[in-house]
């Protein structure tokens, strides 16, 4: 059994002349809760739709549970649960009917899971699905997706439009799924606070390009901010590999750096600051800095950080941005 439930190789998709997903090499480890991050329009949904065989890649290939995505046999589809963006339901059915209808498509259906999730979201089984609130609809969709006990759960922006209580219920359900260690969840999200709670791996997609794919804690450890103070004039900055942001104030330079390592530290210390201090970043700040306005495609946080030569040097600070 492969250690990865999803593997893509140079997966690419154009819509007209626009490259939406660009040569994506992504691996999702079995048993992980994998947060798929990126701004709106970064290509997350298109990637997910290609994984499920709903959209054809322009180039490249992908496998899911060991099967080619473009040729998923029903036995493989049964092992995958997909929650589409927007929590669509058949509005004329009741909650109970939705469950029965959905169950008819599956050989394996665990009604107690359906009931558990429905109760967790406080849904009335006799309520019309069309009358449910957004959060309740999400609960119903989740119940229908979880009841077949899929090996791989793919949730496309499941928290979109949910209130805090429904979001928490969603996260609890996700944690519950991983009671079985061979279960994997891939979910896309904008809500960094939630990603921080439940994800153990993250991938960051930006303008269709994979910018990072690594354990969550590694992402945090490798996007760092430092404050350097100087007596008198601040020196010119040398080319610093992985520099994301630089701000200059009187006698002080603040730097955000990706893939920070011993070499970067040496470089910063060689400027001989009188004070050298790390400024801890929240996950959200790290994420925003990482996808900052400079938007280079050059840094890549890899699962194998011991290969620094894979990183390109993006040299000099844009002096215009330094007042």
């Amino acid at each position, binding site marked *: 059994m492969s250690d990865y439930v999803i593997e893509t190789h140079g997966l690419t998709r154009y819509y007209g002349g626009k490259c939406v997903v660009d040569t994506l090499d992504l691996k999702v480890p079995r048993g992980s809760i994998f947060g798929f991050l990126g701004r709106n329009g970064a290509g997350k949904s298109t990637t997910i739709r290609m994984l499920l065989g709903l959209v054809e890649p322009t180039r490249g290939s992908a496998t899911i549970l060991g099967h080619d995505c473009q040729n998923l046999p029903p036995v493989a589809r049964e092992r995958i649960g997909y929650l589409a963006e927007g929590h669509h339901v058949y509005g004329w059915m009741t909650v109970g009917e939705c469950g029965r209808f959905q169950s008819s498509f599956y050989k394996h259906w665990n009604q107690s899971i359906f009931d558990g999730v429905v109760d967790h979201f406080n849904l009335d089984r006799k309520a019309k699905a069309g009358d449910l609130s957004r959060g309740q609809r999400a609960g119903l969709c989740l119940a229908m997706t979880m009841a077949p006990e899929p090996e791989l759960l793919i949730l496309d922006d499941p928290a979109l439009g949910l209130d805090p209580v429904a979001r928490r219920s969603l996260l*609890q359900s996700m944690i519950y799924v991983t009671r079985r260690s061979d279960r994997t969840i891939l979910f896309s999200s904008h809500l960094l606070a939630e990603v*921080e709670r439940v994800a153990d791996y993250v991938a960051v997609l930006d303008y269709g390009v994979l910018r990072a794919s690594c354990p969550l804690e590694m992402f945090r450890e490798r996007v760092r901010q430092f404050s350097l103070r100087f007596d008198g004039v601040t020196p010119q900055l040398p080319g610093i590999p992985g520099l994301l942001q630089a701000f200059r104030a009187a006698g002080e330079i603040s730097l955000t750096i990706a893939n920070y390592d011993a070499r970067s530290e040496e470089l910063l210390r060689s400027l001989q600051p009188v004070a050298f201090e790390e400024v801890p970043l*929240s996950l959200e700040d790290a994420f925003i800095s990482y996808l900052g306005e400079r938007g280079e495609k050059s840094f890549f946080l890899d699962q194998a950080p011991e290969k620094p030569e894979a990183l390109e040097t993006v040299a000099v600070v844009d002096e215009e941005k330094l007042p």
Partner: protein
Amino acid sequence: MPLKFSVVTGSPDPVYRQIVEQVRVAIAGGVLQPGEQLPSVRALAELLVVNPNTVARAYNDLTGEGALEARPGKGVFVAQRRQVFAPEERLRRLEAAVQTLVKEVALLGFSDEEIQELLQRELQKLKGGEEQKR
């Protein structure tokens, strides 16, 4: 067990470190006694609604520094107190903690005496908590 964990997201402090610190304080304050069992990784993860690996990492770190001990097949327990750090490492940790304190209070304008008094009081509180338990 009166121990109450809580984690916040969006903080510069990673979730696993928040758990580590809460357990450390609970042990130092006597809220958790040597030999006492901690919730299982799974149970704490579901309680806090965090990834089980995050809790496992926290327990792992605490086991590594000798605060907790894992008994195979039984669970994780508060270890009997013993010093696991080499003297230099112990000193380094104390210095780092004091430096953080000094940085935080530098601009608050308290006199040295006031700071020392408060520090003394907090240390007493820690010891008080321990004695109550005994």
